[in-house]
């Protein structure tokens, strides 16, 4: 019994990482309707920035995270404002192809700068310490922190969306970018801020990722898949849905693994397909079709 509880607990915590990776993806899609193929690569880029800060300037992992976040946010604003905005329009393929290009550029710049080695950020005993709940049940500090960060970030974002002027602009620009301009809101600027926020969130995910495991410059696309499935399960544009989507995926995989490690990933994908079949827009869709 304790084994089962532990399995589910670890699945939920794995879902925290998926949700953290997926939050920025969900935001970018929700506001700009941009499917960011390079999202996983941005996470890896943030992780490598943190590793560089840690090794060259001697910053602690927490300090590196605090520096990496605004850097990534600025990068997100610039890329959206000066590159992606130029490709907006009715054709979703154009921004998608551009992010595909970002993916290739980031991977190769990282290969040039850091070589092909797998690297990680040494977080001392933090990455292996855990709360013991007796018996076979334990929750690692690092996965717990990731889960809590995901909850805090998504809650904060939800507050921004529902209570602030900026959130209103996000929602308005998402629903109808043409009308919002008539109302005196510069949707290009709003999009820039949204992408900046998205990359600040992916920076958190990326730094946790290099603390939890080793990452090579070409590993980004691997991490995109589960993030993408989390967004789809939760419903496009829904932030809490994304968290729930990540948790559902993590638990489904863990339970599948418990029966047979060969089918865990498959059970995750089947769950995703099942949700798609039953609720094609995901569990809590927020975006309006346009």
């Amino acid at each position, binding site marked *: 019994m304790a084994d089962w509880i532990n399995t589910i607990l670890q699945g939920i915590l794995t879902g925290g990482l998926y949700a953290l990776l997926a939050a920025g993806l969900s935001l970018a899609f929700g506001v700009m309707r941009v499917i960011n193929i390079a999202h996983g690569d941005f996470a890896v880029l943030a992780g490598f920035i943190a590793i560089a800060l840690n090794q060259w300037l001697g910053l602690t992992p927490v300090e590196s995270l605090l520096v990496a976040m605004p850097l990534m946010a600025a990068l997100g604003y610039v890329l959206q404002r000066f590159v992606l905005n130029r490709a907006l329009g009715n054709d979703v393929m154009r921004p998608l192809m551009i992010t595909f290009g970002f993916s290739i550029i980031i991977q190769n710049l990282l290969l040039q700068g850091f*070589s092909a080695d797998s690297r*990680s950020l040494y977080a001392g005993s933090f990455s292996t310490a855990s709360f013991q709940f007796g018996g076979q049940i334990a929750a690692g500090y690092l996965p717990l922190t990731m889960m809590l960060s995901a909850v805090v970030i998504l809650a904060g974002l939800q507050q921004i969306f529902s209570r602030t002027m900026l959130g209103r602009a996000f929602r308005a620009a998402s629903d109808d970018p043409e009308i919002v301009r008539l109302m005196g809101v510069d949707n290009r600027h709003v999009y820039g801020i949204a992408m900046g926020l998205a990359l600040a969130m992916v920076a958190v995910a990326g730094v946790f990722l290099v603390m939890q495991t080793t990452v090579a410059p070409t590993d980004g696309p691997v991490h995109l898949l589960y993030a993408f499935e989390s967004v789809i399960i939760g419903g496009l544009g829904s932030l809490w849905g994304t968290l729930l989507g990540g948790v559902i995926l993590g638990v489904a995989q863990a339970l599948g693994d418990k029966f047979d490690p060969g089918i865990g990933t498959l059970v995750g994908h089947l769950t995703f397909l099942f949700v798609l079949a039953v609720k094609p827009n995901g569990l809590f869709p927020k975006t309006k079709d346009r």
Partner: protein
Amino acid sequence: MSSQTTSPSRRRVLQAGGAAAAASVLAAPAVRASSANTIKIGYVAPASGPLALFSESDPFVLAQAKKLFANGIKVGGTTYAVEIIYKDTQSDSNRASDVASELILNDNVDMLVGASTPATTVPLADQAELNGVPCVTNDTPWQPWFFSRKGDPTKGFQWTYHYFWGLEDIIAVYTSMWSQIATNKLVGALWPNDPDGNAWSDAQHGFPPALAQKGYGLDDLGRFPLPADNFTSFITDFKNKGAEIVTGVIPPPDFANFWNQSGQQGYKPKIVTVAKATEFPEAIAGFGGRAAGLSVDTWWHPTFPFHSSLTGQSCAEIAQAYHAFSGKTWTMPLGYRYSLIEMIKDVFSRAASTDPNDVVAAIRATNLNSVVGTINFNKGPVPNVSKTPLAGGQWKQGAGGVELVVIENSLEPSIPVGGKLAPIA
């Protein structure tokens, strides 16, 4: 009208001229190859993509070759200049095949060399065999190189040769290493669903029969897909059954997940010997102190008692030269990449001419004491293959951080050991 049919039209003249030009272009390579007195070598390796860490020493090796071959190589009484054409496979087997045929058909290379993983060596050797070009490869266990190319142990291949160790060696090294300390002899296995994992877990030629024969118990939950984020099911099972030894063949990110989660879940095996994940210093740096104690197959090491056939340098001196050149710590592929330029020198020095038949005859007759041991294709387990030594190592806390120490040498007793296997603290 008649003038039009008898006098050559403008189009005819152009066609004829084009054909003549094409003919002269086609004839050019043969003329160039025989008159320029240059030996051309195609060097194929994964310089970018996921396998790029295997090729980090290539700039050093190519610089060495340039220096050592500056005065050319004497082949059958004539001195030839040496030109090495380096091609990147981008870690992709289709691309490896493409660059190999480019080297053969466009560059007219006299010999192909290449290294690292079946994704490089198998397509390279296949192209060479198909086009009749001498080819030497290493850094792929010999079984996938030989059998996945439908090699017949009674006949072998005509043009392609390979040197490395095999699965039987890794089984021997691992079990010999584990026997150094007292355990309950229960082995937890991390064998994923990929070509390596399937070969290692094979019920006839893999670990299971060898482990059973040597009295080890096996806890194998089955093949699993990569990448894997959550190893709870393995850790729980290993912990419940009390497996004191963990082995497997998984990439660095998956092993990092396993090893960190083992820490969180309080699973403490005495021995962890996982291939692939722990062969490179950068990949284990993230474990900090928890890297010490991990053990791994060691196929090249500065303490190996071999010397360069080109300069007489010891393995330690080559590792130092590499450090001075690149600022990086040595890695295992360094020795094997260096041995490729030893092979080039040795083969062409003995060849009667640069004719492919003479070159391949020289490869067949190789008996070279290289930095990776003796290369001799007549003593292999199957034709065209030479086995080079494999040892076992453990990452131990040294003065400058964790370093790899050789702890097992049963297959090649001339390799000095630097310590014994210590249980993970």
